[in-house]
């Protein structure tokens, strides 16, 4: 396990533990957490069950924020979804399930 993975795990654990105590009542704090999740999301799946549970806790804490989302937060969400969607479609296409309607998709032939 490399140092980056260890660092992400440590950060996940830390954030998951402190968010319930301090809350994310401010829109700014919630935005920073979302932006950070956006960055580490591609690595989460490889970190195992404990990491997923930490993210679950973090996301649950985000729900406690009462503020509306800012434009920056919406952009972070868009970026996270776009990144996640693209990675999934690449994997699904390679697995023989090309994106419906995509031209030139030929399954695992890439």
């Amino acid at each position, binding site marked *: 396990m490399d140092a980056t993975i260890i660092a992400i795990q440590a950060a996940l654990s830390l954030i998951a533990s402190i968010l319930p105590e301090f809350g994310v009542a401010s829109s700014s704090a919630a935005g920073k957490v979302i932006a950070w999740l956006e960055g580490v999301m591609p690595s989460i799946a490889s970190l195992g069950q404990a990491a997923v549970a930490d993210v679950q806790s973090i996301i649950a804490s985000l*729900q406690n924020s*009462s503020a509306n989302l800012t434009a920056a937060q*919406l952009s972070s969400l868009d970026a996270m979804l776009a990144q996640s969607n693209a990675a999934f479609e690449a994997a699904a296409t390679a697995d023989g399930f090309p994106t419906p309607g995509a031209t030139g998709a030929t399954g695992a032939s890439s």
Partner: protein
Amino acid sequence: MKLAFLAPLALVIGLAGCAGSGGISSSTVNPNYASAALSAFALVQSTATAYLNLPPCTGASTSICRNQSAAAQIIPLIRSARAAAAQVDTALHVSNGGPIDVTPYNTLNGLVTLLQSVYANYSISSPKGN
């Protein structure tokens, strides 16, 4: 044992639906609940992506591998859930980050529940049943 990899998914799915009573009314949902649902969906999708990147299972597979039958069910559900997630995301933009209509949020949660049933069918929560 082959599907043990998907166990984390079982932890994540349902998260979007775990909202307490404070963020949802009969017609609208708190934007942060919606945001959390989108984050949970991205996480589920990310895990599914990693699963699809595993080598396919063969009769002699002893390590973690991808069951094609599971993949065939998960992929369309993920795509449907993504469409619902896009509706939630669009609604958030339209509301300028404020509360959104609960309908697309509920649709997303419903599809996540469907995904959960697929994982249950493959004994994902009971990986010892290989």
